C-alpha cells in the first residue's frame, strides 16, 4: 500500500515538472519587439494590430518619432530581439541597426528599399505594376493609352516593368518626363490628346497639393479620368484608386517577423508587395465625366463613393 502511494506521488510530481518546463518553453518562444512608429495615425495602428496577430511576439514598447526619444538608448535599455519600423521615417531611423532584425511596414515605394542590408525586410505600400494595370483595365476596359509622369529615379524600374506589362496587354504607356518641379504642369499639359487615362504614381516630386489640383483641372477639362493610389485622392476627384489595407499589410509583415525569429535572416533583404488590395471608386465623378463603370466592378469594389 505504502509503495503504491509513493509511486502515485512520484508520477504526479513528474507530470508537474514536465508541464512547468513546457510552459517556460512556450513563454520563451514569445520574442520581444520594440516598435518605432513614424507618427500616431490610425492606418499605422491598424497595421500594428495586424502584425501582432501573426508575429507571435511580444510588443515591449512603442516609440513615436515625434516624441523626440533617443531611440538608440531606448533600444539599448530594452534589448529587444527585433525592431518593427512603421512608416518611412521610422525605417530611416533604424536603417543603421545591423545586429538585430528590423522589419518595416507601411513604407512607400523607394529605390533605397532595394539596397537595404540583409537584416532589414518588410512590406511596402506600393502595389505591383501588374496589379495596378489589371485594376485600371477592370475599371476602364476601353482604355488604350495610359499616361504617367516620371519625375524621379525611384520609379524607373517600376515604369520599365509597367511598360512591358502594358505592351503585352496591347496598352500604350505614355511616359512624360518632368525633371524639375516646375515642369510637371507642362508635362501634364503635353498629355492632352495623347492619353485616355492618367495613372497617378505615389511620387512626391510629381504629386503634391498644387500639382494634384492641376491634374484635376486637366482631368475635368479633358474628361480624362485619374487612377490613383490612395483613397484621399478619390475623395478629391480621382475616379478610382487601388490601395492597400493596413491591417492585412500588417499581417503580412507579422509573418516576416515570425520567420525571422524562426529562421534568422538570410543573405539578402526581402521586400514584399502587399497581397491584399482595396479598390475604391468615385461613381459621382465618373458620372460627371460620362464614364460608365461595369456593375460587377462596382460590386467588387471595396468602397464606392456616390
Amino acid at each position: 500500500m505504502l509503495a503504491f502511494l509513493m509511486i502515485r506521488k512520484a508520477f504526479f510530481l513528474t507530470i508537474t515538472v514536465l508541464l512547468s518546463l513546457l510552459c517556460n518553453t512556450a513563454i520563451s518562444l514569445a520574442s520581444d519587439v520594440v516598435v518605432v512608429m513614424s507618427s500616431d495615425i490610425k492606418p499605422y495602428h491598424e497595421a500594428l494590430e495586424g502584425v501582432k496577430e501573426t508575429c507571435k511576439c511580444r510588443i515591449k514598447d512603442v516609440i513615436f518619432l515625434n516624441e523626440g526619444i533617443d531611440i538608440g538608448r531606448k533600444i539599448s535599455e530594452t534589448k529587444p530581439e527585433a525592431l518593427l519600423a512603421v512608416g518611412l521615417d521610422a525605417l530611416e531611423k533604424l536603417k543603421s541597426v545591423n545586429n538585430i532584425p528590423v522589419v518595416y511596414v507601411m513604407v512607400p515605394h523607394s529605390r533605397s528599399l532595394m539596397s537595404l542590408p540583409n537584416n532589414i525586410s518588410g512590406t511596402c505600400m506600393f502595389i505591383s505594376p501588374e496589379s495596378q494595370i489589371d485594376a485600371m483595365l477592370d475599371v476602364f476596359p476601353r482604355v488604350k493609352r495610359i499616361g504617367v509622369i516620371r519625375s524621379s529615379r525611384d520609379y524607373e524600374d517600376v515604369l520599365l516593368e509597367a511598360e512591358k506589362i502594358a505592351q503585352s496587354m496591347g496598352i500604350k504607356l505614355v511616359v512624360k518626363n518632368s525633371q524639375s518641379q516646375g515642369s510637371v504642369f507642362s508635362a501634364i499639359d503635353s498629355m492632352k490628346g495623347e492619353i485616355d487615362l492618367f495613372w497617378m504614381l505615389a511620387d512626391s516630386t510629381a504629386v503634391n497639393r498644387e500639382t494634384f489640383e492641376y491634374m484635376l483641372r486637366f482631368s475635368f477639362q479633358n474628361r480624362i479620368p485619374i487612377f490613383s493610389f490612395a483613397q484621399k485622392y478619390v475623395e478629391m476627384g480621382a475616379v478610382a484608386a487601388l490601395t492597400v489595407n493596413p491591417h492585412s499589410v500588417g499581417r503580412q509583415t507579422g509573418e516576416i517577423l515570425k520567420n525571422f525569429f524562426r529562421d534568422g535572416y538570410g543573405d539578402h533583404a526581402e521586400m514584399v508587395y502587399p497581397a491584399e488590395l482595396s479598390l475604391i471608386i468615385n461613381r459621382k465623378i465618373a458620372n460627371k465625366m460620362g464614364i460608365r463603370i461595369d456593375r460587377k466592378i462596382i460590386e467588387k469594389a471595396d468602397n464606392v463613393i456616390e
Partner: protein
Amino acid sequence: MSFGLKIFFSYVISVVIVMTVVASVMIHRHFSLFRNGLIDEGKMLADIISRNSVTGVYAENESLLKEAASAIMNQPNVIAVSLYSADKRVLFHAGSREPEQIGAAPGGSMDKTAELRGVEIIGEDNNTISLLAPVEMGISREDLYFERSPASVKTLVIGYAGIILNKASMKREKRASIERNLTTTAAIIILGSIFIFLIVKRITEPLVKLTVSVRKFGEQGVFEPVHVESKDEIARLAETFNAMYENVSKREKEKRHLEEQLGHSQKMEAVGTLSRGVAHDFDNILSTIKGATYLLNKKIAKESPLREYTEKIDNSLERARLLTESMIVFSRSQSVRAVPVDINNLIAKIKVILADPAQQNFEIRVSLSEGELIVTADPVQIEQVVLNLCINAKDAMHEGGLLTISTQKVMAADMPQRISAKLPQGYDSAAGFAEIAVRDTGTGIHEDIKDKIFEPFFTTKEVGRGSGLGLAIVYGIVNQYNGLIDVQSKTGEGTVFKIYLPVAEKALPDMGN
C-alpha cells in the same frame, strides 16, 4: 533771489526735466509701437504671399505669381514684391525697387536664406525694411497616402517671397508724435508754471507781509499785526511774530509808563526838595514879617488909617503861611507813621468836616462799603488826600451840585484794563484794593490838560485861589503807598477820581523809592 523765486524755479526746472523725460519716453514708445506694427503687417503679408505663391513658385508660372503678388502690392507701405526659386533666381518682381537690391540692402543678404525659420527681416536702412519668407511645400511620401497633422508634415523650401516696406509712414508718424508730444509738454510746462507761480505767491505772501511788518517795526517802531488765513507753519510763524510784537509793545508801554512815573516822581521829589527848602526859608522870613507886623499893630491906634495896610499885610501873611504849609506838606519826608486805617471811618469824619448847611445847592452823599475797609497808611495823609479831592470837586461846582464819596473793596483781577495796566509788575491779581471814589457834577476837566493835573503848581484856578499843589500832594501820597489814581472826566458833566490803596490783608511788594 527771493525765497518765492527759488521755490518757483525749482518747481519749474523739475517739471521741465520730468516732462522732457516723459515726452522722450512717450515718443520712443510710440515710435517703437508703430515700427513693430509696420513689421508685423509686413510679416503677415510676406506669410500670405509665401502661402499663396506655392503653386506659382513650384510651376515657375509668372501669371500665377503675378496674381498672388498683385493683392500684396496694393497694400500701403509695400513698395516691392519679389518671388525667388530655391536657387535664388528671380521668378517674379513688382515694385519700385529692383529685386537685386534686396540682397544688396545694408544688412540684408540673400545668404540668410539658409537660416530662415519663417518670415524674417533681412535688411533695413533709413527708408525701407526688407522681409523674406520661405515658400514651403509638404514633401513626405507618407503624406501622399494619409492625412497627417500639419505639425508632423515635413516641408521642403521651394522658393522665397520677399517684401520691401516703405518707412515713410513711420517717419511721418514719428514726426507727428514728436510734434504732439512737444506741444503737450510745452502746454503742461506753461500751465504748470503759471499754476506753480500762483501757489508760490500765495504761500510766500504771508512771509512778505511779515517782512514788511518787521521792517516797519524796526525802522519806524510801528507795529501792524500780520493776518494769515492758512493754518500752516507760516501762519504759526506770523502768530508768533504778532505775539512777540504785542509783548514788545506792551513792555514799551510799561517802560514809558514807568519812565513817566519815574520822571514824575523825580520831578515831584525835586520839587518837594525845593519846596521844603524854600518853605523853610520862607517860613522864617514870614515869621520875621509877622513879628514886625504884630509890633506895628501894637503901636498903631485902632482907629488909625494905617490899620488898613497892616490888615492887608496880615492877610497876605496868612496866605503865605498857608502856601508854605502846603509846600511843607507836599515836601514832607517819606518817613510817615503807617498804621491800619479804616477808610470808611475816616470818610465818615470828613463828611462832617465838609458839610456846610449854608450851601443849599451843594449836596454831599457818602456810600460806604459794608464793614471795615482797612489800609496801612498815615491817617493824616489819607485824610489830606480825600480832602484835597473834595475841595477840588467843590471848586468845580461853582453853582452847586452833587459830591459823592464812595468806597468799596476791589480785586486787582476785577479792575478795568486801563486801571490794572498801571499796576506795577509783580502785582498779585488776587490782591485786594480799597477804592475811594470822589465824584462831582462840575465843569469837568478838559482832555488837553488831563495829563498835567498832577503836576506841582499846575492850576486852572484864578491867581490866589489855588496853589496848584493839591493834586500833586494826592499823587505823591497815593504813590507812596503803591496805590493808583484813575481820573475820568467829561466837560460839562463832571469828574470822578478813584483812588486805589492796597488793603491791609495782602503783603505789598517792595517797590523802593
